[in-house]
């Protein structure tokens, strides 16, 4: 199969949607358990976006966002990345730490490690879902966090996708907890070889 993500067909997108769904479901359960509160989730939005549009995804290339990146190794190699607005990241931290949101201030070191831990849990849940579907073993690395302009943070997944085509796979997960609304963008970025491996096992390629 000559892999190019601009040639992705409906069936392929459906599989990815289902993966996103199961993964996000797992992740939200894990998060709910961690904070001891009920959390609701919208069905994730899975779509292909043009590379030129990637920096605009979060409402503008210059909007400050938080990005959490993890390496994936094992049978499938690549990256997992979560991106959210500073407001969403603050809400998440507050949920986790049980603190009130009093306007925006810089994240403390403890808050940053809390966010990275959330990244760990979410990635773990996604990978577990993926692993049980495909039978592949995947190991995640320690997460890294960066706070910067959306365009700069998103250039990472964009470049990865740029190697295979002119579009990027984008999964938006929205979670609610009573009045709080958190939107997290999620990018799963397998290497080209791993992509093919995964699709083959899922019966798409």
């Amino acid at each position, binding site marked *: 199969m*000559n*892999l*190019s993500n*601009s040639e992705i067909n409906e069936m392929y997108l459906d599989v990815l949607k289902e993966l996103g769904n199961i993964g996000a479901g797992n992740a939200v359960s894990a998060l709910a358990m961690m904070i001891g509160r009920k959390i609701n989730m919208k069905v994730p939005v899975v779509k292909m976006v043009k*590379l*030129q*549009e*990637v*920096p605009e995804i979060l409402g*503008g*290339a*210059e909007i*400050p966002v938080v*990005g959490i*990146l993890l*390496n994936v*190794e094992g049978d499938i*190699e690549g*990256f997992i990345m979560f991106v959210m607005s500073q407001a969403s990241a603050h809400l998440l931290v507050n949920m986790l730490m049980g603190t009130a949101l009093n306007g925006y201030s810089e994240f403390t070191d403890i808050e940053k490690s809390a966010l990275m831990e959330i990244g760990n849990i979410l990635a773990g849940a996604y990978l577990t879902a993926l692993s049980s579907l495909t039978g592949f073993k995947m190991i995640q*690395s320690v997460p*890294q966090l*960066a*706070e*910067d*302009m*959306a*365009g*700069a*943070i*998103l*250039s*990472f997944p*964009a*470049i*990865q996708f*740029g*190697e*295979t*085509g*002119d579009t990027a796979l984008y999964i938006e997960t929205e979670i609610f907890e009573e009045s709080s609304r958190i939107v997290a963008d999620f990018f799963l970025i397998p*290497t*080209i070889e791993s992509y093919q491996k995964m699709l083959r096992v899922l019966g798409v390629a």
Partner: protein
Amino acid sequence: MMEIIKVGMADLNVTCYPNALTTLGLGSCVGVCIYDTKIKIIGMIHIMLPYSWGVKNNTNPAKFADTGIPLLIEKMEELGASKKNMVAKLVGGAQMFEVTRSEFMNIGKRNVEAAKKVLQDQNISIVAEDTGGNYGRTIIFYSEDGRIEIKTIGKGTKTI
């Protein structure tokens, strides 16, 4: 009236006085800015990857340093600029995350190196550069004098 024209990711554009070119939130990508020192024509390209060879779906030349920069020069020449009067400035090429594996760990640095190599092959000298680091940059490139305003989050603004 001056117009500020946007250049997207994997995109390029050229303009003349009094207009300016801008690209927002450059991370590991590199903004290559070229201007003609005699007449006020400028060009900017937002490259994502160093080389097009070995890459599938390399149909967009503006995505790569090796295919994009020559195309940018061509577009400037079409507007009346002349290659012998061109000089370049480079911005971006940051490393947003400390990735420990894969050839991607230095994509920012590799983009800068490729841009330099291509400019050298084209006999265009680099007169200023603000590259590297681990932060994003927004740039505005003015046709008036070829100056570039660089904005960052938490690291202030500077001009090269």
